[in-house]
């Protein structure tokens, strides 16, 4: 009895269309994700002259990436798993990786959109200008940085099944990153704390973003931050994939 299986490209196209539609219908939460970085850009206007445009933009983008990974991706995975959406997809003739790949590509598009919005806000509100190479490199760095938070989100949904608990845990960690990251970066909590924050997932992502915005200032410190960022992604992704269960039972 001959049976044909559909092409993976056709399957991906269908999944992407559905996931983009879902994102569009949730555009209010997308706006919220974009709003926080814009608020940072606006409220830190005074810091542009003292700390530099790269400092402000890199922190804004980092906070936006944290929101995308921890709030958007994590909550949608937890919710759909709890509702049984994945179960229905799993009994279809598609490779399981396509389900997550489609979701991750959607988040990737959101990361690119977020970065561009911060660029535009930085230019319009704070008159921050970056070289063309800087814009391109920062887009790439944002994708690399976003991967850290997406994989951290994967750890959360891997470890926790209840969607409400996932939501509250993600919010706690997000809040923690805002407080520790922002106040740490501003030196409010002291120099030692600032140095410690530099090696956290917040700090390393912020460092590679700052280095990308001003490529001429890329140094060994930035190289180490890049390696650490990649390391964090690999560790979180490995644990997140290992722990992840497709159903919530």
């Amino acid at each position, binding site marked *: *009895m001959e049976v044909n*299986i559909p092409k993976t490209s056709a399957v991906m196209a269908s999944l992407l269309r559905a996931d983009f539609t879902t994102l569009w219908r949730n555009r209010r939460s997308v706006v919220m994700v974009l709003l926080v970085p814009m608020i940072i850009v606006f409220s830190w206007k005074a810091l542009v002259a003292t700390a530099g445009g790269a400092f402000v933009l890199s922190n804004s983008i980092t906070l936006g990436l944290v929101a995308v990974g921890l709030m958007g991706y994590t909550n949608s995975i937890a919710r759909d798993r709890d*509702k049984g959406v994945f*179960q229905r997809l799993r009994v*279809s003739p*598609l490779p399981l990786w396509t389900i997550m790949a489609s979701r991750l590509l959607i988040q990737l598009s959101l990361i690119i959109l977020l970065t561009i919005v911060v660029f535009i806000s930085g230019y319009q509100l704070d008159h921050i200008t970056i070289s063309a190479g800087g814009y391109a490199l920062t887009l790439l760095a944002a994708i690399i940085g976003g991967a850290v938070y997406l994989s951290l989100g994967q750890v959360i949904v891997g470890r926790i099944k209840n969607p409400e608990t996932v939501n509250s845990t993600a919010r706690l960690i997000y809040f923690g990153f805002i407080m520790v990251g922002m106040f740490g970066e501003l030196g409010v909590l002291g120099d030692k704390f600032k140095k410690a924050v530099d090696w956290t997932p917040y700090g390393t992502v912020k460092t590679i973003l700052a280095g990308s915005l001003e490529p001429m200032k890329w140094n060994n410190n930035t190289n180490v931050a890049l390696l650490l960022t990649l390391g964090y992604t690999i560790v979180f992704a490995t644990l997140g994939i290992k722990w992840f269960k497709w159903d919530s039972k």
Partner: protein
Amino acid sequence: MNAPQQNILEVDNLNVYYGTFKAVNNVSFNVLQGEIFGLLGPNGAGKTSTLSAVEGLLKQHSGTVTVAGYNTLEKPLYARAAMGVQLQATSFQPELNVAEILKLYAGIYGINLTEEKLHKMLLEINLADAETKRFGQLSGGQQQRVSLAITTIHDPKLVLLDEPTSGLDPQSRRQLWTRIEAIREKGNGVLLTTHSMEEAEAVCDRISIIDHGRIIATGTPQSLIDKHRDDPEVIAVSRRGKITLEDVFIALTGLEVRA
């Protein structure tokens, strides 16, 4: 009813564990093309676990499942392409409307669903007016019709239905039975799980009674009644002297209420 043909599903010595608990114990049965086969059992008997192993949602500890000649462990994508599945509790992305859900699954199953075909499909399931409604906004009967439409969108050789009429009103249940019979008339096989005797007798060509993870009886509903008609246990539970499939079922599985 068309004469059944070759096996579309073969389950051989299937064993499924949840930790140390053996939920499915050496279960073997087959479903023929052009046949509606029912898996009948009380709550916790192992019906859904058996079905989940066939669907590929659960990995069996041992035993084989072959769908349309494809082993579900060795060629999972081919096996899944040969079957259409309606889960007990199906849900879709809440943001998508009926038309978008149908298009999603048409794409996943490799079906080119033009607007004309989509409209025709919606007319067939009496949901032409609900095209732009979200799945959650539909009534129970409407949701079942959408689920069944997706299950059969690619004209699968084997259709798996997990308690398909659960929670439906009598009219919706009768309509669904008609649709299930239409799948059989096309020459495809149907495996459904149920704990409704009425459904088993009304729709199924053959049934297996499963309890505590084991198959305890297999046959047509009438043959099971005839075989156990004179059993003392069956006579003891019968009401008003007429032996029904429910009497046979209760005699074989016990009177104890299951959680």
